[in-house]
């Protein structure tokens, strides 16, 4: 295919895309005018019905908990896929690279503790203030990754043993699924809220929302830890061994 033909095809499809984009932009509602009922309804009823002050959190783990179940399995499947694809290059010889600079080690290890606590906090208050299991889980995994940056691959490896992390991931996803069945057994619908809703603005609120929140946090933190360690194994392998 020569250059002018290619350019011609590009021009036609770019013009088509521009026309479609313009058409859809013209049809958008005015800025700041949200006029669908769902969001307004949830904003109006969520705090009274579930006693949780973060409406986004309770939407994710209660009103649309089934969506979140699907997302958990998307993450789970993606991480399993990565593990399987990178299995070819797996090797358990541990390289000796480590951070040698004292200032980096000290500040890095301090940051590990701070980031870990921050992650726990983001998870714990996920349904009271902005945050939640997904965000907090990634922050916790970030603390593990900081161990690699501030100390060594060996420390990271010992902190996140493969079998334990994989089990934690399966436990998180499994707990979410089973909590759904508990809702089915007690309240008659899958993922229906089945605990007392507690007091508004405290950690004891939202019924089964906190449990689903923590299950998600465990699943996400473990999934990212698996992802990091799989990528690092490939990264630290010598080139020739990987290719042969």
């Amino acid at each position, binding site marked *: 295919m020569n250059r002018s033909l290619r350019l011609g095809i590009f021009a036609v499809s770019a013009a088509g895309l521009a026309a479609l984009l313009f058409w859809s932009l013209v049809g958008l509602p005015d*800025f700041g005018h949200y006029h669908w009922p769902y969001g307004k309804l949830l904003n109006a009823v969520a705090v009274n019905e579930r006693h949780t002050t*973060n409406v986004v959190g309770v939407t994710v783990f209660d009103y649309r908990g089934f969506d979140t179940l699907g997302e958990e399995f998307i993450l789970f499947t993606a991480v399993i896929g990565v593990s399987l694809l990178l299995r070819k290059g797996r090797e358990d010889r541990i390289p000796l690279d480590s951070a040698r600079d004292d200032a980096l080690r000290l500040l890095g290890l301090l940051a590990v503790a701070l980031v870990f606590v921050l992650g726990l906090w983001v998870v714990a208050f996920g349904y009271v203030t902005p945050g939640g299991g997904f965000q907090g889980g990634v922050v916790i995994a970030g603390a593990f990754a900081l161990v690699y940056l501030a100390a060594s691959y060996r420390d990271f490896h010992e902190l996140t043993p493969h079998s334990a992390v994989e089990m934690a991931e399966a436990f998180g996803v499994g707990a979410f699924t089973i909590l759904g069945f508990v809702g089915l057994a007690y309240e008659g619908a899958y993922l229906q809220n089945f605990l007392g809703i507690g007091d508004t603005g405290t950690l004891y609120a939202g019924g089964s929302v906190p449990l689903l929140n923590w299950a998600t946090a465990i699943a996400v933190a473990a999934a990212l830890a698996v992802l990091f360690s799989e990528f690092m194994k490939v990264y630290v392998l010598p080139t020739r061994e990987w290719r042969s």
Partner: protein
Amino acid sequence: MIPLQVVSLVLVAAAALAVVLHRDPLRQSLVNGLYGLLLVVLFMVFQAPDVALSMLVVGSIAYPLVLMLAISRVRDRTPDDE
């Protein structure tokens, strides 16, 4: 639309262009991190703190780490292939 929202929208657009225009993957991933941070600001300015937090953790922890490891891997391999 308040001025702060206009400013953050313009900054996000400029940073997105910068990400696309960089050719070196390593620099591109760093600029991409900056772009992610600007998106976080945008979400905060538009009063979506939950989305901002998600963007923050994905854009500054999960994505760069995977990207950096992949880039370092590719850099290791290139001299061998040619």
